[in-house]
């Protein structure tokens, strides 16, 4: 039996695409995940923990390793082996930590001879390290042949400001989700209008069963405190959501509620 041309062409095309797909699935599979935010402000952290956190940032969010090698001369950027010892001698009157911090947030202030001025300010997007991360990274770089003496206060208060503006993805809500579930079903009376997974069934307001998947924490918080200002979801009546939750809920109940909503994915 002769196969129709269309079938032959279709099978041929599928085999070709299948081969490409198979190959692409056979090579190293590397995802690019959004970096996590690190916050050390107010927390007790040992120098060893700080250096470890800094090393992690060096290899991941900071993207330093793309250009800077440790113990290997790079063509794009200087070798950072022993930078902790060298940094204090790079610019007169500047300590090691001051030089490192300046190099991170204002890299063009001093460019090592023989290298192009290509380093981005790491406290600005797209890298956008925050103050805690700059602190940890500086500690790690100091540890490469030097003494770790950097404190959070050494990092300029303005550094990383752009990071907090752009980075809205990851931060931990300090509340208790279980207690928040009780607020949702009890004092907050959210259950009267909203469904949240197995809780509630009323179609009055939007279903919140996947709210954390589709909304940011700042929107959720704003919507609770200022429902009208945050807008009404299309298809639902305006002005139904009570504007008084900001007054009736305690701060703890509010954070618990937000923490619970953040679990709905």
């Amino acid at each position, binding site marked *: 039996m002769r196969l129709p041309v269309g079938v032959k062409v279709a099978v041929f*095309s599928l085999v070709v695409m299948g081969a490409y797909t198979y190959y*692409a*699935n056979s090579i190293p599979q590397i995802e690019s995940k959004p970096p996590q935010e690190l916050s050390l402000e107010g927390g007790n952290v040992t120098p060893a923990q700080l250096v470890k956190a800094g090393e992690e940032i060096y290899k991941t969010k900071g993207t330093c390793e*793309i*250009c800077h090698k440790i113990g290997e001369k790079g063509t794009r950027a200087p070798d950072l082996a022993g930078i902790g010892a060298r940094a204090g001698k790079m610019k007169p009157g500047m300590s090691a930590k001051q030089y490192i911090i300046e190099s991170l947030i204002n890299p063009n202030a001093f460019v090592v001879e023989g290298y*192009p001025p290509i380093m981005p300010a790491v406290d600005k997007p797209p890298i956008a390290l925050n103050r805690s991360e700059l602190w940890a990274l500086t500690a790690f770089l100091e540890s490469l042949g030097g003494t770790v003496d950097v404190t959070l206060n050494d990092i300029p208060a303005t550094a990383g400001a752009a990071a907090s503006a*752009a980075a809205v993805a990851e931060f931990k809500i300090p509340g208790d989700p279980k207690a928040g579930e009780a607020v949702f079903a009890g004092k907050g009376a959210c259950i009267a209008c909203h469904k949240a997974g197995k809780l509630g069934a009323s179609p009055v307001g939007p279903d919140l069963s996947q709210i954390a*998947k*589709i909304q940011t924490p700042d929107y959720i918080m704003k919507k609770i405190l200022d429902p009208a200002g945050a807008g009404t979801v299309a298809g639902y009546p305006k002005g139904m959501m009570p504007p008084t939750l900001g007054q009736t809920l305690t701060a703890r109940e509010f954070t618990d509620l937000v923490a619970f909503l953040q679990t709905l994915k």
Partner: protein
Amino acid sequence: MAPVATSWTRQSAGVLLFSALVAVALLGALPVEAQDAAKEPAYRSFPLIGSRLAVWAVAQLHLNFAAFILGVPIFAVIIEIIGWRTGEERYDWLSHELVKLTFAAFSTTALLGALLLFLFVGYYPRFWAYMTSIFYPTYGVYALLFFAETFTVYLWYYGWNWLRGSRKWIHVGLGILSNLFGTAILFVANSWVTFMMSPAGITESGALQGSVWAAINNFTWMPINIHRLIANIVFGGTIAAAYAAFRFLGAKTDEERARYDWMGYIGNFIALAAFIVLPFAGYWLGREIYAYNQTMGITMMGGFMSWLWIIQAILIGILFIGSNYYLWLGMERIPGSERYRKYVPYLLMILAAGFIVWATPRSMVVTLDEARVMGGTHHPVLGFLGVMSAKNTAVNLMILTTFLSFVLYRRANRISAKPWATTGMALQWLAFAVAAAVVTFYGVYGYFVESIVRIGFSVYQVLAVLGAIVVVMAIDIPMFKGARSTGTIRWGTIAPRSQYVLILLAVTFTWLMGLMGFARSGIRQHWHVYGVLRDSSVDAVTPALGYAANMITAVTIAFFALVMFIFWLGGLGEKGAAEGHGHAPAPAIAGGSDPPA
């Protein structure tokens, strides 16, 4: 007599007009929509597959169709001009055939564009509100261009019979005008896409600073304009050639086979001619990405995306070898080509060697024990072939080899009658040798200099290859003018496997487009607008290549299924009117020509 417009094409035109009106109405409503979106959630979740996959699928499909309908008219109008100036009716038939294909795909493109817009507004409202805050002035321009393009294409297609004879220049003018409008539409849409990659003209907080022109004219805008324009021609050529191949394989008569053999050859010729210069446009784009942001450039080439370029190398290697193989098979239907067949094994060897070098990864996938034995993840010998110096050299030599294949094909049935032919050929070989020497020299020298110097060497390599192409053709054209013929090309007698090569090229190039789209979008990583508007959705993770490949394949299958359906619909109206144009054995263009006896 030209084919008449069928009722189906009229219906298609109706859909097209409706789509245009919907799109324009939607664009007009966007500012209001954007204001509402600012109060809306940042994201909504698309049922079942999620918002990202929905946008990915529709965007890739839209781009595939858009590339086809923008690429094909560029060479369709050139073919029409050739037909007009030479008086060869067959060129006019071919041009009309090509425009018919694009016309059939036009409404689908518009509908997919509207659907993409709905998805952005509905599922990424905050992102779209931000884009609107920057690019609102361009929406009106886009809408006007869309109208202008639609009506010009209408007139071009439906006026084919009306604007014949002494009015043909008006018809050709419409074709040129529709191409200008189409290119302008491409440029406007590219400004949005490139702004997402390399935003410019904004403050640190992302607000527009001054004129929108600064946002449009960002680092990657013009390189992508040029890269896409050329790639669209390649894509259009491969799809038109694949269509011809399909018709060839299903042909019932020798005449039909001859006609579609010729059409396939022309499609492949156009694709190949544009494809040769595409890597140069790619270099420029890559350089501008580095110039905009080193981190982005390094992430693209040496970061999590580095293996993508190995897949790209394999695909482009297949395109090069496939195109050459088609030319070599085509030479078998040309009397007199026997004298050049002895070169084919050597050409194949160069292409195969180039393919192997280009597809050599810098780092190997090895076990810990293997890595210890090798002293790292770089192979002690082959690792040297995995760097840009070797790869740039390989691709430039492959381009030269492909051009040589074409030159041999072009003169397969012709013997120059010029007294200076021997000198001319010697000069041509010299041009090839000089270009190959320059490319090789800078390839080797690149190992001994810093990367910042090495990047500049690729410019010299490119110039050497382009220079050789110009010199060889400048000699070739006058040298074979009035040449003696060794026989007529036997159109339709090419081996059927050659038609599968044309289909392979179309499938591979479409898949490659999907992969490059992933590369362009993926290098933004977790940013909607790089460094300005962060992706805080659940889909902020940039997937690995396997996941991307699965998606690209699924969309490519959908694209070809839709294309086959649309072409089948187009073919329905053709039945009974197939003999509208006279089709004597087809002549050739720019190469496989039948010279005057």
